């Protein structure tokens, strides 16, 4: 009984008493634990510190104080797609296989082509990556993160410029991966509709700290924080009116 409890609770990344100051902005996270094999959602308004927290997890920034534990995660097991994707001055194909090259792995042509075809990029393999449309660029950056099968992925607003169908396809793909070989995800968004359905847990950011963590329903319906309630009600009205 205890062992199952322990494995259930084992974490991929845990931040404790982490502080980071950037200019005027102060991030302060007392305890943020991301359980292994789960899909986590970071939500919160603009400038609330979601990206900054993600960069700390990636090791792109180092904290001023506190500890960040990464359990069994080497630098090659973890990846992040950035809000504004960085694409190499090269073709779509070269961008897609870059993480494989880094690992000395040879790309399997058929697999790469199938992946591109699944998201409507099959004709664009030889196109200059930076000439793609913004949604296509986001797709490419997403596929590039998935191709080497990392164990921890941070998806920072990467779904925001994709059409609804592509978003759905990626969601399916994510759920597919979770069924076969679960990895840990952090999906950052300020759109509730993107994360509510997908995520096992949500973490609500506000002014540089995590105001609440819990399941989608816990955050949505049970939170007593006025700020969360306000954020949620606005989101509900928006997605409600969009559907009708």
């Amino acid at each position: 009984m205890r062992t199952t409890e322990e494995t259930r609770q084992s974490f991929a990344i845990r931040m404790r008493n982490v502080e980071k100051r950037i200019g005027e902005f102060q991030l302060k996270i007392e305890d943020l634990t991301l359980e292994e094999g789960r899909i986590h959602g970071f939500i919160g308004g603009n400038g609330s510190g979601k990206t900054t927290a993600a960069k700390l997890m990636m090791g792109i920034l180092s904290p001023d104080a506190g500890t960040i534990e990464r359990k069994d995660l080497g630098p090659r097991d973890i990846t992040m797609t950035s809000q504004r994707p960085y694409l190499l001055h090269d073709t779509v194909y070269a961008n897609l296989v870059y993480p494989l090259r880094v690992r000395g792995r040879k790309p399997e042509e058929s697999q790469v082509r199938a992946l591109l075809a699944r998201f409507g990029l099959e004709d664009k393999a030889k196109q200059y990556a930076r000439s793609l449309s913004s949604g296509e660029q986001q797709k490419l950056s997403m596929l590039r993160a998935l191709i080497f099968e990392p164990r921890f992925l941070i998806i920072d607003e990467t779904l925001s410029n994709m059409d609804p169908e592509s978003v759905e396809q990626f969601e399916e793909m994510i759920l597919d991966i979770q069924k076969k070989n679960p990895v840990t995800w952090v999906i950052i968004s300020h759109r509730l509709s993107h994360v509510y359905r997908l995520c096992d847990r949500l973490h609500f950011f506000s002014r540089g700290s995590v105001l609440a963590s819990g399941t989608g329903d816990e955050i949505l319906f049970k939170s007593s924080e006025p700020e969360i309630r306000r954020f949620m009600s606005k989101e509900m009205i928006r997605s409600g009116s969009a559907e009708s």
Partner: protein
Amino acid sequence: MNVIEKLVGSLFSDVGVYDAIRVTLCMSVCSTLLSSAIGIALGLALERFSFPGKRIVVRVNRTLMGVPPVVVGLVVYMLIMRRGPLGFLGILFTVRGMILAQTLIITPIICGMTYSYAVKTAPAVRVFARTMGANRRQTSILLVREMKYELYFAMISGFGRSISEVGAVMLVGGNIKGNTRTMTTAIALLKSQGIFHEGLTLGLLLLVMAFVIQCLADFLRREVQEEENY
């Protein structure tokens, strides 16, 4: 080839036009390659490492980018003249001496351009490389690859500067016919002899070379910018 040689020969009086073109190209190519190797390495290192006094180094480098070449020529002359500290090298009035002076003039330009491109490019490339799991060596290689057009452009600018320079080359090389006479110093000589039309023809030739180089630079720049989807 012979016909052209005769044709060009009949166009010019006895200033050694062929040799001047050969010397110009040899000197410019050598000094550009040398300066590129040193300047690119220094520019990247300057971006990569921080150390006390770095801002001063950057400022000094910016100043050197605009130093009058003739001043560099004078300094190099004093260094390599027979009684100078580097007199034992015996490179005064040789192409090697000219390459040394030119390298000193162009290196700060290439270094400065490399540095400013690197400052703009490197942070994003480093973050990206980190997310892709690249190690240090792979990150450095990636950075150079991502900057390759800009680096070509810096090299071309250096080359353009090199073929058009007169003062330093005159001081250090001595404008010896068939030996250290370049296209620009030949023009200076032709002018002093009052043979303007030949000077102009040679000048036109230089202009054509500069134009070709600019086309090349433009072509590279276009390749980078035109395809981008902003």
